[in-house]
């Protein structure tokens, strides 16, 4: 099911100039009440940062210089979904069929190999960030140790040059 573009509800674009997706995620997840859908959008202007689109909540101020970025998020076709219908239930291990049946995710892909099998096990690692692509909410996964699939995006990717 695709709710993001069709739902008749409050839709808002906002930019607080977050430099990293992690800080934008943190802001989204601290909202009360939680939005129905919240996405991050990578924007280049006026400087590279992360703008946000929200469905079901409103009343956020954006600085004038970031308004274009907020508008870009609102019209963005490639939102990375942080909150979406069913997202709070995506914890632990689930089959791909369960993911498709209980959430707004339309498709689960394996990177470089096409769609995952319904019976494949997704280890969510309690961090799932699918992406809207051509109107579909797609979760890209990769094979991981133990014969499971894991979401492409990890919560703590290796920093550019520290600690390794």
């Amino acid at each position: 099911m695709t709710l993001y573009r069709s739902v008749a509800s409050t839709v808002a674009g906002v930019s607080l100039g977050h430099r990293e997706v992690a800080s934008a995620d943190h802001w989204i997840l601290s909202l009360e009440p939680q939005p129905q859908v919240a996405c991050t959008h990578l924007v280049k202007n006026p400087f590279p940062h992360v703008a946000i689109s929200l469905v079901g909540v409103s009343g956020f101020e954006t600085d004038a210089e970031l308004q274009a970025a907020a508008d870009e998020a609102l019209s963005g076709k490639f939102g990375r979904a942080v909150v979406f219908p069913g997202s709070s239930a995506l914890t632990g291990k689930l089959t791909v069929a369960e993911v498709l049946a209980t959430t707004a995710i339309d498709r689960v892909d394996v990177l470089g190999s096409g769609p995952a099998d319904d019976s494949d096990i997704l280890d969510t690692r309690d961090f799932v960030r699918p992406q809207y692509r051509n109107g579909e909410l797609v979760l890209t996964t990769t094979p991981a140790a133990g014969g499971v699939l894991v979401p492409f995006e990890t919560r703590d990717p290796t920093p550019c040059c520290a600690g390794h």
Partner: protein
Amino acid sequence: MGHGHDHEHDHTHESAGGNLEPALDMSIPDSELSPSDVSRRGFLRGAGLLGAGAAASVLAVPTAAQAAGLPHSHGPAGGGSGKGGFKWLAGDHHIHTQYSSDAQYRVIDQARHGRAFGLDWVVITDHGSVAHAKIGVEKVNPDIVKTREEYKDLLTFQGLEWNIPAAEHATVFVTPSRNEVSVLKQFENNYDGNLLPATNTEAQNEAAAIAGIKFLGSQVRARKIDGALFLANHPARRGIDSPHEIRNWRDADPSVAVGFEGAPGHQAAGIPAPNGRGGARGYYDNNPSAASYAGYPLESYRTWGGFDWMTATVGGLWDSLLAEGKAWWITVNSDSHVNYLDQSDRGPDSNFDLNGKYNDPVYTGKTLTTAGDFWPGYYGRTNVGATSFGYKAVMDGLRAGRVWVDHGRLIKGLDARVRTAGDRRPSTGTPLGGVHQVRRGTSTELTLEIDLQDVPNWAQFVPVLKRVDVIVGTITGPVKDRDSFEAPDTKVVKSFEISAGAKKVSLSFALGRLDKPFYVRVRGTDGKRTQPGLRGAGIDPFGPKLDVNGDADPWGDLWFYTNPIFVLPSGR
């Protein structure tokens, strides 16, 4: 300039300096130069800055480009021109020491391990930083000089790992001389991304990167150093090296910016827990950020058979550069910071910011199972065809692209040449990186002499080569879109299955009668992990497979890659 054409394009030798000095202006023959300019031209040629060594474009020779019906650039001709055999010297251009804030070993620790594991040359590349620019870049030099004295059969270059403004990291290194520190120090202070104003725009930073590369070339031309090279490190790791930036670096000075890592270091990072870190091979586990180039697919953020997506994809970004006629080479390296199964730690009571280094490492007795790196030479090798054993010869070989790379000592040796069909004389044939020019309609062939592995690697087994793929792409000339990363005409044209038990294998592949310019490159594998390439099974039926997160045994998935040989019509 009497070139007899009026089309619009960059004139490499003009953009390099504005008012071109006579020695650099190849439209002036040697006989019309003053004696001092003849001497200067000889020096520049010897430094690889003119003629065959410096690769502006393989289409640089006007007759070749005209014969091919393609626009040409006017820089020096690309690729190596050497024929016959070379001394193949194995090395690693990306190694950290206690002068990096995330590493720990002495220079001599890294150098002597590299030497013991079979390397002939190493480059010390500590991170550019405030502390390094102020202290480390000078303080590391006596350690390097001492290592050179201690191990005369190992070439130990001084370099640094540049934070390319607006982009990833790069190895920058120079030939040893009394100016090696001052050139590197000036370069780092003026051009390192971490030392530039944080208020810089992306455009300002991209311009600073180009200026930095040009500065290195200017130091060679001013005879402060004999040579300087730039190699972009882990280029696809975070998606921040856009295709146009890579093209811009190269075009800024093709005698300096010569290539990128075909495979990143950190190859132990995917060894499964509990015996290993259980992470991502090469530490390639990132996702797009606001700084990333938006056009890159998610596939680009992971490794494929241990290699970077830009190189691993047949018909991908690397091939798009080669199909343009841009000479651009690949390497492998260790990126050693902290090594898998080592038992040392940073020295106690270190103060990196104050001293520019950590205190000497100490033995702890605790085995570092979660470290992601191998010692230099233990796993990956960059094999350079050099005319002799020496610092400048290694740089010249790298600049000429006489380079093949392997992981886990998959093969023992390799001699790849393009030949005019039937000419099998040992002294002929165009080696890796070179340009084979023949009259249109002439038949050419690729010959491969591969010494199969007959001694164990550092994991105590003898690797077995299973398959060799020949990859061919048409050279279509400069691209309009400098962010292009596809070469639609490049594909695997032949796969050889290698039967077990032989000591040496001789392969040849007929490249047909020449009607349009093309390049050929070669790849081989132990055949243990393959999948159809990202551009389809018709392009690459048995390509490298996506590495499994947390379960990527680097010894169970071995590949070698060669650099290309270009074949051009000579015209008329």
